[in-house]
């Protein structure tokens, strides 16, 4: 038997961790209930989803123009704009800005794109301290971990684990498992860091082309602190995050937090349109935006896969995924876990890297039903499954398409398709099968390890229908 892949090994391990699985179950149940409570009126929800979809689809349909408009307006507002084709280029840009200021440390608000860039690791290798300030990110960074959820990065950790971690890393602080006290300690530690930080980094939730504005959604204030206190602010974002108009923002802001955590709105919605003006008394004197492609323009070239780029990273698909809740975020081995990761990661890095994820779906459809911008995630999973075995690989931008194609499997399906579309062969075959039904073995390998073997019926469907007097013509 083939050696199990890394993904399978990780899944197997995760399934065995009953305690962590219970955390995920409880957390996801709460998130699902909270979301449902935010949308008591289904018609209103569906209308809002349609609107959010139209806003994002409109932006994508004008993407190159809007990016240029965004750039022009940002420059007019005094923001410096950088473009990066790869994560390495993006990291170099951040490094270059830091070197220019002789900065030895950077404080970060929550940003999934910076995770995508592997920025912390990159900077640390070059002797620069990169400190996370979102409470969840701060906690997992202390433990040398990566986020297990895009909205709640430390969701896999229990209160007891976090208390022990704080005690281990900050021995001077008396041990406590009181959440308020733990939070207060983190506040104190990070306040001092904010005070001294020469550079702050943030992500971007929406970038408004019309006004040259960077919008940030958050609850803690780490985004506000990172973008206000240090003298230099660097924002990093994917090129798909742009929207056309200011009037597009309220609807997106209305659906994002409700879908994500079931809050009517986040504590802070921060709209940044430039660095400190000469007569202003605070705010960074320099603001930079790094626009990252990293495979997005390739996804953009396919009319079906393009829908992936509508994503507003709410995490609702993750919260509702029966696979995610069982295997947790780390098993995916990717930056973005859950259904969005399942469709995004193989498209970004190619089917040979994370292509296996597309098999890890029951296609139950929950993700597609809750997605605030109506991304047909199950259809895209199917499409990627097709891409992985298709022959005409030149017709898809997906990298390493066709690499899962097995000649025996392909020949089998071809034969099946011929038989099924040739009535004489089909009838002969199905009749023979019913007569030989006793020969189906009880042990069918992995399938029967958790199920009983299927039994063929005594009569074919055609025969049964005839007996019932159903006219199928």
């Amino acid at each position, binding site marked *: 038997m083939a050696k199990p892949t890394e993904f399978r090994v990780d899944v197997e391990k995760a399934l065995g961790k009953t305690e962590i699985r219970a955390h995920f179950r409880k957390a996801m149940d709460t998130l699902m209930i909270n979301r449902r409570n935010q949308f008591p009126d289904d018609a209103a929800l569906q209308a809002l989803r349609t609107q959010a979809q139209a806003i994002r689809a409109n932006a994508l349909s004008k993407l190159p123009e809007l990016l240029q408009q965004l750039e022009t307006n940002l420059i007019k507002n005094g923001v410096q704009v950088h473009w990066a084709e790869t994560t390495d280029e993006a990291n170099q840009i951040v490094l270059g800005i830091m070197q220019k200021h002789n900065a030895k440390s950077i404080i970060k608000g929550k940003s999934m794109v910076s995770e995508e860039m592997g920025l912390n690791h990159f900077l640390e290798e070059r002797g620069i301290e990169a400190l996370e300030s979102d409470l969840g990110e701060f906690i997992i960074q202390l433990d040398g971990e990566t986020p297990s959820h895009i909205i709640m990065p430390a969701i896999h950790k229990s209160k007891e684990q976090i208390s022990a971690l704080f005690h281990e890393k900050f021995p001077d602080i008396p041990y406590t498992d009181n959440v308020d006290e733990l939070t207060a300690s983190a506040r104190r530690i990070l306040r001092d860091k904010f005070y001294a930080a020469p550079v702050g980094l943030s992500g971007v939730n929406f970038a408004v082309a019309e006004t040259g504005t960077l919008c940030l959604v958050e609850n803690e204030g780490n985004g506000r602190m990172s973008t206000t206190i240090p003298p230099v602010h660097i924002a990093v974002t994917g090129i798909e995050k742009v929207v056309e108009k200011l009037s597009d923002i309220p609807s997106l802001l209305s659906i994002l937090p409700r879908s994500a955590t079931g809050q*009517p709105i986040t*504590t802070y919605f921060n709209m940044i349109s430039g660095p400190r003006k000469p007569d*202003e008394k605070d705010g960074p004197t320099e603001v930079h935006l790094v626009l990252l492609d990293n495979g997005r323009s390739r996804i953009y070239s396919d009319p079906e896969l393009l829908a992936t780029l509508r994503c507003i990273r709410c995490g609702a698909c993750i919260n509702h995924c029966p696979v995610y809740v069982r295997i947790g975020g780390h098993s995916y081995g990717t930056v973005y876990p859950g259904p969005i990761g399942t469709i995004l990661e193989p498209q970004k890095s190619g089917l040979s890297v994370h292509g296996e994820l597309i098999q890890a779906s029951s296609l139950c459809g929950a993700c597609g039903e809750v997605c605030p911008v109506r991304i047909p995630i199950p259809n895209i999973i199917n499409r990627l499954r097709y891409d992985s075995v298709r022959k005409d690989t030149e017709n898809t931008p997906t990298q390493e398409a066709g690499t899962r194609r097995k000649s025996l499997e392909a020949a089998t399906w071809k034969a099946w398709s011929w038989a099924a579309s040739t009535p004489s062969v089909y009838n002969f075959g199905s009749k023979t099968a019913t007569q030989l039904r006793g020969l189906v073995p009880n042990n069918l390998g992995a399938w029967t390890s958790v199920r009983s073997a299927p039994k063929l019926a005594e009569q074919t469907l055609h025969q049964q229908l005839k007996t019932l007097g159903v006219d199928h013509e």
Partner: protein
Amino acid sequence: MSKARANILQRLTAVERPVVDLSARESLSRFDWDKAERIRRFTERMQAVRAEVHQADRANWLDTVATICQQKGLNNLLLSPTTEWGQAITQNAERFPTLKYYERSIEDWKQEMFYEVDAGLTSTLGGIAETGTLILWSSPDEPRTLSLVPPIHIAILETDKLYSTFAEAVQEQGWLEQGLPTNALLISGPSRSADIAQVLAYGVHGPKELVVVLV
């Protein structure tokens, strides 16, 4: 990295653009709530996230703010001396804790700003009833950190600037026509996090307490 820019734009423009159904895009969400209803909803939402809301009016708001300062045992209060509210408080300074004015660039008094200010008081540009939200625009008089760094934020909201939704506020106040400030901000409660085992904790990075005075 202009090469990256050219390459990215070239790839994006090479694509045949999708046709999009935009009929749903423009709908503007707003509600026909009268003033009392807007105040009721605003208050309910704010209180649900542990913000304090005090009803006052033009005649007695000063008493309300003074009482809040007293009850919270504030040693000092940071504010702008130039706003309508700041002027009135300054004229009645004896009824308030030590008044501090945001008159210098933050670099000149960062230590004090970070560690010695008990509360910041700001005006607001308006409010949103649907979500229980304050609108703040940064300005030379009322900089961004005034509502961010001190552990308590006291905000004064005029009830005739209370809109039903964010979309309505953006339109009615003509944000696009005015041009956005360096930092436009929506605040809907005190700073909070549920990152530790989904238990809500307040005052992670921003103010631990948000106090709204309605006038």
